């Protein structure tokens, strides 16, 4: 029973990480319909931005995190303007943009390795606090991951519901063509989606940097889990992205109570397969 409780706690922590990744990816995917696989290396680049500010430049950690978020936001904007937008302007089919995204993924991932080296980057940070709650053990870095989801999730929900710009994002998520017809500046909204989505991804990237260190290749697992969480939750639904991420984390962790852990990395595929089979629109996907 103690083990189950611990695995549920771990699942919530990991799920919060996936949910944050899915929020950013889902915002971009839902708004622009671009399968932005380069989201992975941009996530990694954000961690490197944070590391660069904290380690070589010696900035305090809070400032380094801001630098990491700024790195992600700028990289996201550039990815859209330099790589995807020209294809959109040409009216290229989604497959072409998808291939461009994969190309950008490879270029960015290798560029990070070439520029910063292939070793793991760590930042000077105080040791993680350990909290013992009965049979449960959690660390301050794990709590930070859950807190980040709560704060950013609530903030994004308020933003898209209460602001005019947020409503434009929702309109584009719902129907991009109709949004254009009614006069929404879709270029501006798409750019904003890339900036905000990439900035959101930068937060879990910085937290992982502090917790476990960063590598040039950390983006693959991140974009993969974000993609699965968005599909499981329902494309176009930010609430679904969060639910999908949390569900993935919980299933991946609690499923290991009886199943040998060597199967853990397969669980995301199984969940994806089952959702595509029985609920192709995802848990919260509705109208499309």
């Amino acid at each position, binding site marked *: 029973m*103690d*083990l189950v409780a*611990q*695995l549920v706690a*771990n699942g919530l*922590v*990991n799920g919060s990480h996936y949910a944050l990744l899915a929020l950013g990816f889902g915002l971009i995917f839902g708004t622009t319909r671009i399968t932005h696989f380069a989201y992975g290396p941009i996530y990694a680049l954000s961690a490197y931005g944070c590391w660069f500010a904290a380690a070589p430049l010696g900035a305090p950690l809070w400032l380094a995190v801001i630098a990491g978020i700024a790195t992600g936001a700028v990289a996201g904007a550039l990815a859209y303007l330099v790589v995807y937008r020209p294809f959109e302007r040409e009216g290229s089919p989604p497959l072409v943009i998808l291939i461009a995204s994969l190309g950008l993924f490879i270029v960015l991932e*290798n560029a990070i*390795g070439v520029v910063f*080296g*292939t*070793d*793991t980057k*760590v930042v000077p940070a105080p*040791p*993680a606090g*350990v909290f*013992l709650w009965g049979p449960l*053990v959690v*660390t301050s870095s794990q709590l930070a991951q859950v807190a980040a989801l709560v704060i950013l999730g609530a903030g994004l929900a308020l933003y898209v519901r209460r602001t005019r710009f947020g409503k434009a994002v929702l309109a584009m998520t719902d129907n991009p063509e109709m949004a254009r017809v009614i006069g929404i500046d879709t270029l501006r909204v798409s750019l904003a989606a890339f900036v905000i989505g990439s900035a959101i991804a930068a937060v879990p990237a910085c937290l*992982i940097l502090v917790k*476990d*260190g960063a*590598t*040039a*290749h*950390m983006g693959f*697992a991140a974009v993969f889990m974000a993609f699965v969480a968005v599909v499981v939750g329902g494309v176009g639904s930010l609430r679904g992205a969060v639910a999908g991420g949390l569900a993935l984390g919980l299933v*991946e*962790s609690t499923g*290991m109570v009886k199943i*040998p*852990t*060597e199967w*853990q*990395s397969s669980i995301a595929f199984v969940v994806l397969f089952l959702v595509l089979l029985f609920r192709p629109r995802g848990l919260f996907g509705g109208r499309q």
Partner: protein
Amino acid sequence: MRKFSLPVAAFTVLVLAGGVAAQQPPKDPKTYKIGAILAMSGQASFYGTVMSQGIKQAVEEINAKGGVNGIPLEAVIEDHKSGNAQEAVSAMNRLITINDVKIVLTSFSAPTQAIAPLADQHGILLVNGGGVSNSLVGVSKYIFHNRSLAADLGLAAAAHLQSLGAKKLAVLHWKNDAGDSVVRAVTPYWTKLGGTIVATEAVPQGATNMDTQIAKIRAANPDAIGLWMFNPETGLAVKRIRELGMKQPVIGIEYTANDAKIAGALGEGYLFINDYFEPSADQPWSQRFAEGYEKRYKTKPDFYAANYYEGVYMIAELLKRARAKGGDYVNGESLKAALYTNPKFDSVYGGQMVFQPNGVALKRVGLFKVEGDKNKFEKFVEIK
């Protein structure tokens, strides 16, 4: 008279054949091309970086002294993308068809297994300084290993845990051939020693999160934990085990500088059994290598860099020996024969490494303990 004619004729033919062979001049290439198939990209590219640096340094040093037999060495480095067998085969094919190499430095278990049939087919000498799975022994007629096998290191680690009085062992291992080979060797050995394995948890190579596995190990309440895995997961595992409040002895079979960086202060007390590479004044070659490496790459050499560095020197020695026999000597068969004429080679670790009939070199192996930012040498360990 007739009784002697057949033996005499045979003897005459042998003498003549021998004479002809001995008189054959060596067929020298313009350069000795040494291929290397390493993890130059991907999750484990740290290995490819340090291994290739060791190779380049050795090649530069040897060429600066006029090459081998007056012929320069040339390193051709290919990428198996951190253990991808298919990429390794493609790389091997490029080395064979484009570069016409007859000597390849290989790394990682799966890629080495994948290229072994090509090595046999084309008579290519393989020198493995990184792959650690037992399944690599004899995988090719022409393969030699100057890296201790993981299973041997694991057995030595288990023996040390038993000497500490541990009975209940939990294992966290890589789910691949390298990790599985240690599990296969240590599990029956530990049981035979009278202990029990209370948890065997697996993580994929490249795992960034192993909290679930560590939670299961914690629930099993072991006396000690064995880490049958490699960089960077070792560092991450040590860190998370300690962060989650476990105080048991943790022992492993590797601890690179990268692992140490990840684990930070939480690596304190971690034990590991590994090839013993420690540059010191009483081993001048080790010191020269370390100084040259630091000058070139602004970092201290890893033992993997040392393995590939000394691997190139060993190949140079083989080329000298094989050339003395004349003929077409740059091939797996001639170089293998040259190796077994005297299986002892100077090791940059100090002393000599001696190749056994199974192709694995016996080298100095030690038990280390992490203390502060140092890996404190505890004692030499016998590998049988």
